[in-house]
């Protein structure tokens, strides 16, 4: 058994609180399912046969460990040692599959027959459709109408894999609305359906469970850095934050290492104060969304504000409660990158390292120019996904 899934993170309590944030703010209709999951997830994850199956799938199906790539030309440009954690090389093209492989195994052990999920960029939808196909389970994916348009290649992939993609037509027709619809679907189908949430959001135990499944990212970084640099800890870890699952995974095993600076980059959209932004920590305040107490963008009257980002995966008005806690406690630093900065960073990585990143990931890369790391310092950027799905957008802005 690896330590990945058994080491508790961030001092999460039994009721799912990270400091002031977390919990399970759900209607009674969801209580039996969420409670069943809460009572079983740690037990199942600790079972030897689960561990064997999970580790084998991560290795042979997902393709782990993913490489830690020394980005030589980028390092020269920014005057420090930059490593890229290649989650883009995971099967399906992003870190999302680490979580869906784990959750589908839990769903099977809970004897569920159907899977429902939300998706923004479509990466989580594809990763969910993929594991459903692998396990022969029915799969329904809710996706905002706007996202169906801007991430069309991923819609086609989900359909190819046999999933049913249902449009979410309310609100801004993006990730938040898809999440609402997936929750409603779960309420309407309470017995044989498991909801695979795609980020460290939702009611407890989801944030903790998803973080544990993504923790493999930082577990591998530590080992790989020992091989390459003779020390397990970098000076910086950078990751983009939509809900925050790739960041949670990249930060996980460094949380108790105060020498490692954890840098989370949100989507500023057209600018933090433009009225078209998804920079949650800059614009939000504590509130309740999708089952947890967290930081969210809202009006004075407590209505959720429609976010905006060019990147469908970051176009979300909240963040996971883990990140609300990291922000409030100051353990992680939160910044935001605009659409334009992300597009530029994406082009830069493509042309200096031969890697086209996802638009989401590009937000993390965009922070490099502000980092001012010293020549001997080691910077690890979590390259959460590849950019094939975003080529349409990239071509428009080239």
């Amino acid at each position: 058994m690896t330590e990945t899934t058994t080491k508790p993170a961030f001092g999460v309590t039994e009721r799912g609180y990270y400091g002031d944030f977390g919990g399970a703010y759900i209607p009674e209709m969801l209580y039996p399912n969420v409670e069943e999951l809460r009572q079983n997830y740690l037990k199942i994850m600790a079972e030897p046969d689960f561990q064997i199956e999970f580790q084998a799938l991560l290795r042979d199906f997902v393709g782990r460990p993913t490489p830690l790539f020394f980005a030589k030309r980028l390092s020269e440009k920014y005057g420090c040692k930059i490593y890229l954690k290649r989650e883009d090389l995971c099967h399906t093209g992003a870190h999302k599959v680490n979580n869906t492989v784990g959750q589908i195994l839990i769903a099977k052990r809970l004897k569920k027959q159907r899977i429902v999920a939300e998706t923004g960029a479509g990466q989580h939808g594809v990763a969910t459709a993929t594991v459903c196909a692998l396990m022969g389970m029915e799969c329904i994916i809710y996706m905002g109408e706007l996202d169906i348009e801007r991430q069309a290649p991923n819609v086609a992939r989900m359909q190819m894999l046999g999933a049913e993609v249902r449009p979410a037509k309310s609100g801004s027709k993006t990730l938040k609305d898809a999440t609402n619809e997936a929750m409603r679907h779960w309420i309407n189908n309470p017995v044989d359906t498991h909801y695979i949430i795609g980020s460290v959001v939702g009611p407890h135990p989801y944030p903790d469970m998803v973080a544990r499944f993504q923790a493999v990212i930082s577990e591998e970084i530590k080992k790989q850095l020992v091989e390459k640099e003779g020390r397990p800890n970098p000076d910086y870890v950078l990751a983009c934050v939509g809900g925050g699952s790739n960041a949670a995974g990249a930060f996980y095993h460094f949380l108790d290492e105060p020498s490692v600076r954890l840098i989370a980059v949100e989507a500023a959209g057209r600018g933090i104060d433009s009225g078209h932004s998804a920079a949650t920590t800059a614009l939000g305040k504590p509130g309740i969304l999708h089952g947890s107490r967290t930081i969210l963008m809202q009006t004075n009257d407590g209505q959720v504000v429609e976010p905006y980002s060019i990147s469908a995966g970051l176009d979300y008005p909240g963040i996971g409660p883990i990140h609300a806690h990291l922000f409030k406690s100051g353990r992680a630093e939160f910044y935001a990158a605009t659409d334009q900065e992300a597009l530029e960073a994406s082009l830069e990585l493509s042309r200096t390292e031969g890697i086209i990143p996802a638009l989401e990931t590009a937000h993390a890369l965009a922070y490099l120019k502000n980092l001012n790391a010293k020549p001997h310092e080691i910077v690890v950027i979590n390259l959460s996904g590849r950019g094939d799905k975003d080529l349409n957008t990239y071509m428009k802005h080239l």
Partner: protein
Amino acid sequence: MNRITEVFQNGKANLLNVYFTAGYPNLNDTATVLQALQDEGADLVEIGMPYSDPVADGETIQQSNQQALENGMTVAVLFEQLQNVRDRVTLPILLMGYLNPVVQFGVENFCKKCQEVGVDGLILPDMPMDVYLDDYKTIFEKYGLLNIFLITPQTSDARVRQIDGVSQGFIYMVSSASVTGAQSGVSAGMEAYFARINAMGLHNPRLIGFGIKDRDTFQTACQHAKGAIIGSQFIRVLQENAHDLQPGIGAFLRSVK
């Protein structure tokens, strides 16, 4: 005595509880709808505080929430609209909504306002029981507000007992596993669930809600509980009678009771 407790104690059967969204169809219709419900024979009312992301609600109530928000409805505006409502309306009034707007208003401030305008109870479906017991119960009680909990067909007997133990007024018995607005009517499976709950000998009376829409479903529900709650269907009635609410509401209530 709390008006909710009173209506259940005075022995009347077949209680009709009607849900409507505040500020719908037009911002200033709240008091009109309330008055019409009283005049036309409702026994309790639930006023919905609109929310941007009502995950437990189906399309009809979602749209009414959306429309009410576009009309300018807020928690503060609702309290203004309810300011002198107790001069005319004697029905038990519950406010129903999601927790975030209440938390942003300030829970104690919210409860104080409820007492001032004469609200009797609250239904906040996404408020967890442990948070209620640890943080809010004493505040609710200080301002004379009953907190109404939901149960569903999936709620275990043990949890039903736990909910019964912390409930006052009544228990909201959700008829089927669904969001609001389901069109399924009352099926045999539901009757088994109603019978199971009835056999438990709970302290609190129940009202059945979700999927109640006409005389038939109302009557069936009333055979298994003290009464029933109509929501989505009433929102449709408001939508169809937006220009002349009182007669439309009257005709609908007479068709049900």
